[in-house]
């Protein structure tokens, strides 16, 4: 047992270890705080927090669970991309291959699918909890706004991913969803004031979303790129702001 302790000390006091972790072994109060504040992954979290503000009964841990699900979705989504080609002639077959042929593909797809459903639910539960505990009130009112943006991007990710299996459900869901853009004021060709800017089926807001007038190859590619790269990148930016503001504004609760 002493041997293990000796080795731990040797490693944690070596030149290489100390070049990565600048603080000493976290057994003192100071080193424990430095372990959090000097780590890029942990520094968004406060080094000290009141126990009462951190009770699961109060927070439901819904923000943390949402973030965990986002990480799960990023990893499983990345793995799905190795077998999926956003080509309208083979997307459906690739989805079927992922379900029935690819080793553990079924687990992967279902993790991604159920994770996505769970993330929508946990984000909404998080929002409800923040609302019911009044945690949106000053000085946290800006973070509520950032949270609403995150909710929108969660829903956009959910919606854009829905097209990718390229089956009848996807086709019609996105047909219906993008048809709403037809009714945009000024920018949709069936919306109010469509004539002011001369909107038609081949130049309005829906046309830009789909890259065409029907849900076809260009729409599949656009949704794929937004789903896999565009929306996650934007989400991460707002996520960072969201976490940083919790750190700066402090936790709410019985302080």
């Amino acid at each position, binding site marked *: 047992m002493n041997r293990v302790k000796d080795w731990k000390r040797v490693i944690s006091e070596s030149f290489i270890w100390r070049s990565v972790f600048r603080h000493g072994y976290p057994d003192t109060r100071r080193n424990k705080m430095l372990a959090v504040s000097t780590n890029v992954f942990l520094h968004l979290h406060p080094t000290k927090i009141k126990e009462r503000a951190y009770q699961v009964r109060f927070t439901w841990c819904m923000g943390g669970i949402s973030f965990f699900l986002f990480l799960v979705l990023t990893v499983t989504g990345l793995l799905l991309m190795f077998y999926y080609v956003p080509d309208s002639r083979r997307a459906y077959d690739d989805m079927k291959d992922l379900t029935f042929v690819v080793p553990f593909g079924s687990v992967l797809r279902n993790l991604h699918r159920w994770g996505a459903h769970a993330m929508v639910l946990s984000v909404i539960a998080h929002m409800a909890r923040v609302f019911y505990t009044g945690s949106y009130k000053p000085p946290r009112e800006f973070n509520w706004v950032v949270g609403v943006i995150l909710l929108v991007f969660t829903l956009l990710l959910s919606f854009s991913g829905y097209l990718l299996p390229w089956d009848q459900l996807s086709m019609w869901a996105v*047909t219906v969803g993008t*048809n709403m853009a037809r009714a945009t004021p000024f920018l949709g060709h069936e919306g109010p004031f469509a004539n002011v800017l001369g909107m038609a*089926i*081949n130049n309005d807001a829906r046309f*830009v979303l789909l890259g*065409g*007038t029907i849900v*076809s*190859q*260009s729409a599949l590619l656009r949704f794929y790129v937004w789903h896999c790269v565009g929306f996650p990148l934007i989400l991460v930016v707002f996520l960072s702001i969201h976490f940083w503001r919790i750190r700066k504004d402090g936790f709410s609760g019985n302080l």
Partner: protein
Amino acid sequence: MSEDLLTGTKRLSRRGFFSAIAWGAFTAYMLALGAVLTRFFYPKILYEPSQKFRAGVPDDYPKGIVNESLKKAQRVWMIHTEKGIYSLIAICTHLGCTPNWFLENNRFQCPCHGSNFTLEGDVIAGPAPQPLFRAKITLAADGKIQVDKAITANRPPQRDEAPFVLKV
């Protein structure tokens, strides 16, 4: 701007002048970038059926018949009534499904949420908020019918006049 203490007149300082130029250039650049990005998302070539197509000659469409021959390829019905020939777009105005023509009921019925439309395209049942659209229809120089689905109308009196009805 800096103020001349003796005369009280305001004059543009050298620093203010260059600052204005720099911010002006930056603003112009960002506006141009926004315009470029917007234009980027409008494709110049579409790999899908054109909005404009030829639809045969007027004699192909006898009076009183809903012609469905172009529905699969172009998603329109060619209809000849007392007022003339019009090209009715087969996109339900509720959520974009494709209605079907039922001769025995003399109406279009949408399979998704049950909207019903008359021969004219008017809503007589279901959730559709407005009549079906008619495409621009003209007679080309060679005597063929030319349809343009990008130009539409769905309410009288506009939809009952040229170019949305072809008088024959």
